[in-house]
């Protein structure tokens, strides 16, 4: 029996093999959304936990495992960013830009940007982070969220409008 079929049948050894094969991909994807190592680790475990519990719903013939897992990961990240937890800021611990010595003006600008991002709903925030910061293609964002490319575009435009408004309030002219 093939690995995915064994996983769908509830075989824990098959699950372990898949976990080892895909943990890097899932961690990277989540890290891009939440931009924090510890949270990305926790959400990676949460993603595989959800996948393990939903093994029977995985259709070996229809679905691609990596795509299915990415949708679960995106939903786990979305749940993390939902309103009750929105005051948890995006720390941007993982951005390469933070490693560089930056001027006061740049630090202030970054702070204003992350404060503005905190004003977005979870749905808009995920799209904004993936499309604007990570420059992920719209079709890839759409696939991960299970929505159409047009909906992604609408969400990006709405996010940009809100970000501009919030940045203007903070004295930044986008």
């Amino acid at each position, binding site marked *: 029996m093939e690995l995915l079929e064994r996983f769908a049948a509830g075989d*824990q050894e098959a699950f*372990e093999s898949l*976990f*080892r094969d895909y*943990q*890097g991909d899932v*961690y*990277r994807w989540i*890290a*891009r959304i939440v*931009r924090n*190592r510890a949270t*990305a*680790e926790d959400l*990676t*475990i949460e993603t*595989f*936990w959800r996948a*393990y519990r939903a093994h029977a719903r995985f259709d070996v013939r229809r679905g691609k495992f990596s795509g299915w897992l990415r949708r679960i990961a995106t939903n786990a990240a979305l749940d993390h960013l939902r309103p009750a937890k929105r005051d948890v800021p995006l720390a*941007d611990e*993982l*951005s*390469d*830009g*933070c490693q*560089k010595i*930056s001027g006061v003006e*740049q630090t202030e*600008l*970054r702070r204003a*940007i992350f404060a503005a991002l905190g004003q977005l709903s979870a749905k808009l925030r995920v799209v904004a982070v993936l*499309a*604007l*910061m*990570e*420059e992920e293609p719209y079709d890839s964002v759409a696939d991960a969220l299970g929505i159409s490319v047009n909906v992604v575009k609408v969400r*990006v*435009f709405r996010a*940009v*409008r809100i*970000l*501009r408004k919030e*940045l203007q309030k903070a004295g*930044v002219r*986008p």
Partner: protein
Amino acid sequence: MSEQDVSKMKELLKKAGVEPVGLAEPPRDLWPMMLARLAPDATRVPWWDWVLVAGAGLVLWFFPAVVPALLYHL
């Protein structure tokens, strides 16, 4: 709102030093964490089992005469 505004926002993010995370690797193998998450589920007693135990306890408490009959059948 247009693609031009989106591009401007992307430029602003770059100016602020907010860059893509890119290929961040997990700092360690996460399987031990996953195993810890899986383990309690295997040993957890479902809530209806506790209800059954509580019900049996109540029966024995209110009808102690049942105890010898129960022991006989065990």
